[in-house]
């Protein structure tokens, strides 16, 4: 769903040129040191398949990167529109400069929509963004620009179930003062799909963000999240669970930018890796000179279930203010034999004991999810992953 000329706007053309000029990151590119992009198929879908019939509820459905939902019954205070040229320039301004994922998807945009939440609107209905694809050699590049007004509240979930060469959604959320956002992402693309996403959240004062990612799909997936804390007393909680097996590759990359004083951020990351899967966590917390009284916490743990699995972590702190409390921790290890023994000695089968311990390992992260209605399906998804279904 694009205005006819959007693909020809200056911002799109510039991004396309930039992407073509820079190409994929080389072996020495620091941001991609653990995730090598050997080959990325960029073949944006041009036109939608037959539009699906509108789904019940507040659902926006992107198929092959194109918006296919018909009319949606928008609740009062929430509305959607297609990008204008001005929106495109506005959107691009939020993206980090010369960022591979930014130029990739802006340059090859397949769909671009703005969702606006009016100031003060309390939207309790869950907005679902569904991303599907069924063409194996195509790529999807939807741009989604969410503008959440001051004092508003909204709840958003992304479901990624694509079968394509590449799914590369670009999401910018501008979250107004005192706004509350509950956000979740469920990524379960097929294991031949590459998933390269970039989510940028610009957070104003006293906003309250809770974002949760579960990543279990894709051949290679990179979930990059940039948080710009621009207003004082903002509170951000970012949690992720990634699980990979076979030859899957999961990459969680976060940048938490504390630009102003008195903000709080916390990150919990848990990874479970089996077979020859590889898991990557790169998390950077930057505290600017003026951002006094920052409280920035980050904890990443990875569990290796097989001898060939690999976990790489690079938690970074870059701190320029002196009156701050920042910490990060990272651990990598296997299931504790003594824990297994304890359970087995109480008559629990080895497989079941392992599952219990993995669930326990993920539990504290799962508990941070504020979208209560998702918790059950998240737990199911994790259990299904563990039983290999």
């Amino acid at each position, binding site marked *: 769903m694009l205005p006819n000329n959007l693909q020809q706007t200056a911002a799109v053309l510039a991004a396309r040129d930039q992407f073509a000029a820079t190409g994929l990151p080389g072996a020495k590119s*620091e941001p991609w040191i*653990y995730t090598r992009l050997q080959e990325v198929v960029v073949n944006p879908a041009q036109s939608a398949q037959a539009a699906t019939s509108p789904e019940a509820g507040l659902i926006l459905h992107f198929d092959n990167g194109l918006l296919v939902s018909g009319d949606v019954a928008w609740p009062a205070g929430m509305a959607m529109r297609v990008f204008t040229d001005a929106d495109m320039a506005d959107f691009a301004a939020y993206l980090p400069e010369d960022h591979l994922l930014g130029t990739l998807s802006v340059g090859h945009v397949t769909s671009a929509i703005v969702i606006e939440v009016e100031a003060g609107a309390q939207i309790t209905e869950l907005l679902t963004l569904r991303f599907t694809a069924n063409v194996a050699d195509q790529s999807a590049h939807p741009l989604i620009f969410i503008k959440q007004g001051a004092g508003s509240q909204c709840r958003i979930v992304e479901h990624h179930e694509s079968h394509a060469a590449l799914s590369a959604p670009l999401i910018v959320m501008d979250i107004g003062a005192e706004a509350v956002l509950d956000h979740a992402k469920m990524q379960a693309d097929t294991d031949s799909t590459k998933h390269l996403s970039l989510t940028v959240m610009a957070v104003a004062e006293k906003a309250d963000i809770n974002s949760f990612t579960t990543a279990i799909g894709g051949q290679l997936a990179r979930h990059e999240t940039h948080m710009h804390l621009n207003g004082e007393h903002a509170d951000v909680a970012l949690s992720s669970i990634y699980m990979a097996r076979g030859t899957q590759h999961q990459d969680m990359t976060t940048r938490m930018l504390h630009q102003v004083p008195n903000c709080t951020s916390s990150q919990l990351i848990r990874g479970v890796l089996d077979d020859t899967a590889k898991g990557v966590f790169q998390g950077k917390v930057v505290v600017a*000179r003026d951002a*006094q009284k920052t409280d920035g916490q980050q904890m990443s743990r*990875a569990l*290796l*279930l*097989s*001898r*060939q*699995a*690999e*976990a*790489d*972590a*690079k*938690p*970074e*702190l*870059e*701190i*320029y*203010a*002196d*009156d*701050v*409390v*920042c*910490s*990060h*921790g*990272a*651990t*990598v*290890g*296997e299931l504790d034999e003594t824990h297994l023994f304890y359970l087995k000695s109480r008559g629990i089968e080895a497989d079941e004991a392992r599952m219990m311990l993995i669930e326990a390992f993920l539990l504290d992260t799962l508990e941070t999810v504020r979208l209560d209605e998702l918790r059950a399906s998240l737990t199911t998804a994790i259990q299904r992953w563990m039983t290999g279904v």
Partner: protein
Amino acid sequence: MAATQETIAAVEEATGQYKYGFVTDIEVEKAPKGLNEDIIRFISAKKDEPDWLLEWRLKAYQKWLTMDSPDWAKLDIPEIDYQDIHYYAAPKTAEGPKSLDEVDPELLATYEKLGIPLNEQKMLAGVAVDAVFDSVSVATTFREELAKAGVVFCPISEAVHSHPELVKKYLGSVVPVADNYFSALNSAVFTDGSFVFIPKGVRCPMELSTYFRINEKNTGQFERTLIIAEDQSYVSYLEGCTAPQRDENQLHAAVVELVALEDAEIKYSTVQNWYPGDAEGKGGIYNFVTKRGACRGDRAKISWTQVETGSAVTWKYPSCILQGKDSVGEFYSVAVTNGAQQADTGTKMIHLGEGSRSTIISKGISAGKSNNTYRGLVQVMPKAENARNFTQCDSLLVGDKCGAHTVPYIVSRNPSGKVEHEATTSRISEDQLFYCHQRGLDEEEAVSLIVNGFCREVMKELPMEFAVEAQKLIAISLEGSVG
């Protein structure tokens, strides 16, 4: 070629009678500025080196030409003109001094000022000193006592002649020539350094110590140290550095290689307090050091302890390659930056052997306008069954214009390996300061006390005589950072 002719002429001139005005008024013989194959041949000839070493140097130089200066560190380094540096300077003496009496008294006086224990009094302290003045070792004490134990402790230029088989076997075996830009440069132009060999089963009877100084203006120092500890041996090596004030930046690119065989232990301690430059960072030392130890044998242990307070720019990652089964690597570091200093320092622990263990304790203190980065890598390779790492990085910020950064890299390829990393960043709390004020300490004393407490875990790893000095050093380094 004209340039080559010029160099040759300059080399000839330099080798003839030549006089300079020096701060310490000692005649110094030095190679002309610049770096090319002729300079390397000149250095090699000066050292009367065997052909294989000259070849090795030239190969390193060719490698270096193809390499780029690393830019991944969080450092802002002005471009270095490698052709504007003297690569060789030696205090001029008729013949090598046989005893202290023969050493130039001016030189001894300078050491005295720096508090280097070269003279008799220090014999009581049990310190054997291989003092390095600019690039050539001029005096070595306690050689005989060490020789009795079978320990070889001498300048590496001497070891090339006295123990060529050892030097040939181990030189460049831990830090390959082309490991990085600065190690390649060092391999091409290194002038001197220390060589230590501890034979099987010997516990070195005393702490070995060497003092590096940079004195000659515009003289890069390219020290090369090689320590080999055979099976079941033990050695503790102390390195301390001072340098007088200079206006121009001085380059230091040292390489230190440690080899620990079965059940051997090497403890390497450094106190580095080179001139950090003035408040704007002008004139300080550039310290680009490659230090690496290999635990080749089972149960071998290498322990690095460093107190880094000096230099304008520090780029230094003392590392351990834990090859042996149950081998142990340790890294204890205190890095203090003040003024406009920049430090990017940390360690690498490469776990290859089964049951290998490593501990990293890093304390970074930033004050003034400085930036202090911990950068470390912990890598558990597939065969490192039950490897264990614990890392703790704490940063302390003094003032609101400095920066503290932590960049740990963790790569785990074996599920039985356990890797833990913890990092915190904080400042001196008002409560702590208030408590000290209450007891009559002024601001500066209080900060010094608190910072020394913050570093205690590392300080206790230092040998006694260093620990006292290091505590004073930290207090001095933080002067002017408060109030």
